[in-house]
Structure formats: C-alpha cells, structure tokens
C-alpha cells in the first residue's frame, strides 16, 4: 500500500529532481569549485525534500529550488568561497566593446576562439550579485521576473545588474582575446 512518504517521494522525483542539473550548474558558479558545489547541491535538495510541503504543486519548482540554493549558499558557503580577482563593474555604463571592434570583427567571431575554462573563470570573477544574475539568465535561461524572485530584488535591479554583468564580462573576454592574439586592436 502506498504510504504518504511514497507520495511525497514520487512528487519530489517528478517535479524537483528534473532540475538537479540546473541546481548543480548554479551551485558550481556560486561556490567556485566542484566539491563544494556537490555539497551545496546535496544540501539544497535535501532541504527542499524536507520542506516539500511548502512547495505549491504546479508553481515554478526550479525557481523554488534555486531560491533554497541561494539561501544555503549565502548562509553557509559564501564565507569560504575562495577570493578571486574581481572584475570591476562600477565603470560599466554603455555598450563599449562593439565601438572598439566594429570594423575588425563586427560578427564577434573572436568569441568562438575563447576556450570554455576561460569563460567560466571570467564569470567566476564577477562580484556575487552580478555573477548570480548572469548565471540565472544566460546559463539557466530564467526570465527577468524569475531572477527577481530568486534573488529577491525588483526587476529593474535585475535589468541593470544583467547589463553590467554582460558588459563587464564582454570587456574581460575581449581583453583576453587581445592578449591571446585572437583579435587585433584597431589602428587609431
């Protein structure tokens, strides 16, 4: 005979577990290394299971899980995140890279020469609130409203963080591409 715990388990497996990859990817970018990302993911999923009664069936399970993940990270893991050289996002105000390269590489084909590790390292160097916004948007494909829900800020803040995060990251990747010779600087 099916017991309540079986029902709970089945519901959790059907609605929450399909988002495990998403939880892990975000955990990896938040924590900065695989071992902590696995611990953080496991703890998140266990907390979610224990508070499954608070989840309303049919609502956004992924956003719910990512909110638990974010709280767990902030409360228990952020202190131990290794310090990385942070990208300065305060100076970002407008689209700038395109102006530098529009007559050299208007299609942005230099991006394709950059290896995955370099991209992930550059993402990891973004300040926390900008990194989480960019990861939720560009890695996980959440809408602005979903990101606002998970990060507990207004949609306007999500927009400005996403703009600055994308532009700061683009500047970092462009500088890297210049350094590696994937693209040449425009003659003044």
């Amino acid at each position, binding site marked *: 005979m099916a017991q309540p*715990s079986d029902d709970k388990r089945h519901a959790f497996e059907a609605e929450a577990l399909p988002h495990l990859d998403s939880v892990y990817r975000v955990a990896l970018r938040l924590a900065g290394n695989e071992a902590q990302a696995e611990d953080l993911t*496991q703890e998140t999923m266990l907390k979610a299971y224990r508070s499954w009664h608070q989840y309303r069936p049919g609502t956004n399970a992924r956003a719910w899980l990512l909110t638990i993940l974010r709280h767990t990270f902030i409360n228990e893991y952020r202190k131990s995140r290794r310090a990385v050289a942070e990208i300065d996002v305060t100076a970002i105000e407008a689209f700038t890279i395109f102006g530098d390269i529009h007559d050299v590489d208007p299609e942005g084909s230099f991006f394709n020469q950059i290896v995955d590790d370099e991209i992930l390292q550059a993402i990891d160097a973004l300040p926390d609130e900008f990194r989480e916004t960019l990861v939720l948007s560009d890695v996980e494909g959440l809408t602005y409203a979903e990101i606002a829900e998970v990060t507990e800020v207004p949609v306007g803040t999500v927009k400005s963080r996403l703009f600055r995060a994308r532009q700061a990251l683009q500047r970092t990747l462009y500088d890297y591409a210049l350094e590696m010779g994937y693209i040449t600087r425009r003659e003044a």
Partner: protein
Amino acid sequence: MTQEPQEIDCQEVLNRLYEYLDGELTPVREAEVRTHLATCAPCMSVSNFERAYIHFLEARTRAHGAPESLKRRILEQILFEGDTSPTS
C-alpha cells in the same frame, strides 16, 4: 489602455536592447525597437553583435550537468529520509 508604437531614437533602442534580445519587452515596445532596427544600420550592427554574444554565452556554459554519482547520492538520501522502515 491601448498604446500605439512611437518612433524612438538610437539611445532608446540601446537602452532596451538586452530586453529586446531577451524577449522581455511588451509587443508595442518590441515593435518600436524592431522598426528602428530595420532602418538604422549602426543600431542593427550593435544588435547583431550583442545577439551573437548572448548566444555564445548560452552555448558555452550550459553543457555541464550534475555528476551521476551526485544524482545517486541524492536519490539514496531521499529514499532513507523520513521513512525508517525499509521499502519493498
């Protein structure tokens, strides 16, 4: 209240560009951007570049999922959680 599409300038297009590329604009505001882009080559170039950049980020960061060993650990943990009697 119905809103008619207005003519917008290059600065306004750039202000809305990421929302446009992310599909976050209302139909009217999206139409305003699209109409401007169709006739403004410089803005269209920026838009194409930024679209390529966003696609690049998506394509290059979504590959990795949770390791199988982690999935198994979580499933086992849930199986033993809140139910002390063995399941048949």
